[in-house]
């Protein structure tokens, strides 16, 4: 069984589960939330469309080699800062992000810099923010969340420097 199928089963299973709980609160509750969910969907589709189709173009002008170049052997805090920018600017999904991290580790990138890269990618990867977070969350929350997250790739790198390699 593929991972995608498993995810879909899990996802629709959860929808069915919470839907059942809502239904047992009474059909009006169920109908109201069904209507609200469908309206949310209708409102979100254009934004998701812009995110999916648009981020493909943004990704196309930021080739992977550029990102790999930024994760060079520059150690120290400048290297950490570059790694953070590289993490946010990495196009594509988890395969690309983690592969770039692995390449950087194997080609002599410092461990704290790679940790900062992976953490920054998890926190800020632009395609996930554009595609998922902005369409689903209030815009003010997204910008706020990103802003207060800025110190944390640096904190992770600092912890990595203190406790050493894996």
């Amino acid at each position: 069984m593929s991972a995608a199928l498993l995810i879909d089963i899990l996802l629709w299973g959860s929808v069915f589960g919470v839907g059942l709980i809502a239904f047992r609160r009474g059909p009006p509750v169920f109908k109201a939330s069904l209507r609200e969910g469908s309206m949310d969907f209708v409102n979100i589709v254009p934004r998701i469309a812009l995110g999916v189709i648009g981020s493909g173009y943004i990704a196309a002008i930021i080739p992977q080699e550029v990102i790999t170049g930024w994760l060079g052997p520059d150690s120290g805090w400048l290297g950490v800062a570059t790694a953070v920018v590289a993490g946010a600017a990495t196009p594509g999904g988890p395969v690309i992000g983690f592969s770039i991290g692995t390449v950087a580790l194997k080609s002599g990138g410092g461990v704290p810099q790679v940790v900062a890269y992976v953490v920054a990618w998890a926190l800020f990867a632009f395609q996930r923010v554009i595609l998922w977070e902005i369409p689903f969350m209030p815009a003010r929350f997204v910008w706020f969340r990103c802003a207060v997250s800025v110190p944390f790739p640096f904190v992770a790198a600092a912890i990595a420097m203190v406790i050493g390699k894996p």
Partner: protein
Amino acid sequence: MRKPIGWSTIIIAALVAVSAALVWRRDGTDGVLDILTHDLSLFSGILPRVLAGCLLGAFISEILPHEKVSRSLGPKSGLKGLLIGAAFGAILPGGPFTAYPVASALLAVGADFGATIAMVVSWTLIGYGRAVAWEIPIMGTDFTLWRILISLPLPVLAGALGRFVYVRLYPKPLAKDDES
């Protein structure tokens, strides 16, 4: 949720237009169309999941007891609220199509920015879904576990920082959080 068109949408649309123009200059019309067809098929593939995410969010905000949520995850929930948010983010199954609708539902029923930030950051840094599916196979078990160990304190710290800044930026509670 939000108005269909806000500043974020406008900024993204402008960014996309510039990028598409650059792709067109570099690769011509064929390059632009290649990306468009690829992304359209991707789009149709994720639509059902988006629908599921929206329904999940709507049902959850309907069945969650509002007073209880604002007590355990609201602005006055303290460290405990941040810990609950972080724990919830770490165990939440699925991908972005579940995490963000659920986070949005929590905000709607009384969780504050701090607890919701703890949840989202914990989902992305500690959540087992991406680690098991992608990070361990690509980066190896040692690196992944060690990276997660380093990340353990971050969700609560991010939530605490968020709460600290939020009450200073917006001293009075806003009537509606839907502004975009």
